[in-house]
């Protein structure tokens, strides 16, 4: 059914996608408020949900770096991995300074990519 919408209603389809995203996002916050005085955030169920969430997010981030879709496809895998390692190293070396870590990682990727185009 949804696939049919994407073909029959190309203009409305992305709005249905965004609306679905909004519902799938707020539902957790709303449930969190409803449950906040009744549930034990230290319990086993929450431990498991937390682990599944962290694993999913790590998988997503790794996928964005290793197998990106879009403009990053034009960059070399080794450049993206090198940039990630530099970002992590600078972040840890500067006592977890996000700005410097992110800035270093992005700069390394841009410089390596431009360097390859210019000198290789």
């Amino acid at each position, binding site marked *: 059914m949804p696939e049919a919408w994407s073909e029959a209603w190309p203009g409305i389809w992305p709005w249905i996608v965004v609306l679905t995203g909004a519902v*799938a996002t707020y539902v957790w*916050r709303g449930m969190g408020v409803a449950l906040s005085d009744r549930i034990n955030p230290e319990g086993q169920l929450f431990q498991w949900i937390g682990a599944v969430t962290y694993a999913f997010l*790590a998988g997503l981030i790794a996928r964005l770096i290793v197998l990106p879709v879009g403009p990053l496809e034009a960059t070399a895998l080794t450049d993206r991995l090198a940039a990630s390692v530099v970002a992590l190293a600078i972040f840890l070396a500067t006592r977890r300074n996000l700005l410097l870590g992110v800035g270093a990682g992005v700069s390394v990727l841009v410089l390596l990519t431009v360097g390859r185009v210019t000198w290789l």
Partner: protein
Amino acid sequence: MAESAYRSPRAAALGGMRASLGMPAVILGASYLGFGSLCREAGFSLWLGFASTATGWALPGQIALVELYAVGASLLAIGSAVALTNARLLPMTVALMPLLRHPGTPRWRYYFFAHFIAITGWTIAMQRCPDLPTDQRLPYFAGFAMTLWSVTLAATGFGFVLASLVPDYITLGLVFLNPIYFMLVFAADFRHRIRALALGLGAVTGPFLHLVDPDWGLLATGLLAGSAAFLVDRALDARAGRPHA
């Protein structure tokens, strides 16, 4: 962070606004420039980008949504991926709400301001609110998080426009901001054993399962690697003779 309480709830809201307009706005604003660019690359319109940031505010879920939309995934796959990506908001909300409660505050206000719970504002509120009188906590959080939300809306628009105006290599950098930012945000969780296990296993498994099945690979990654991390963590606890809560 020498100052503790504000003079009034109103001053607390302004204090929250000021606190967000520093590093948090720079980092998250820059990340949403990347999101705006990603929207354009994925074939979203500017208005769809704004709508996503306004109503589905939480960057990892927004990225998952746009990326899956771009590869033509089904609505069920997109909804499930966004729901699983954002499931962390449930325990986050459960942990934060008891701090924000103040007797006499109408219940709908908690439901309204819960929309603005996301990693950055949550972290700050968890640190700052215990030092504030209870009537100043919700205003502080609201001032902080709604300012950040406004900044990210503007950044989504700028990123979308920049994606077509700036050289390719800048676009590249903006799109790369997102994964790098979250990698570093989650690096702070490496000290927490079960999270470190889940992050490590998920990062290794994710790309492989994505190759096996682009629609469901990441969901399978979460369930398999997350459950494995949970079981390993339990086994390590049992070996150390620690009882379960």
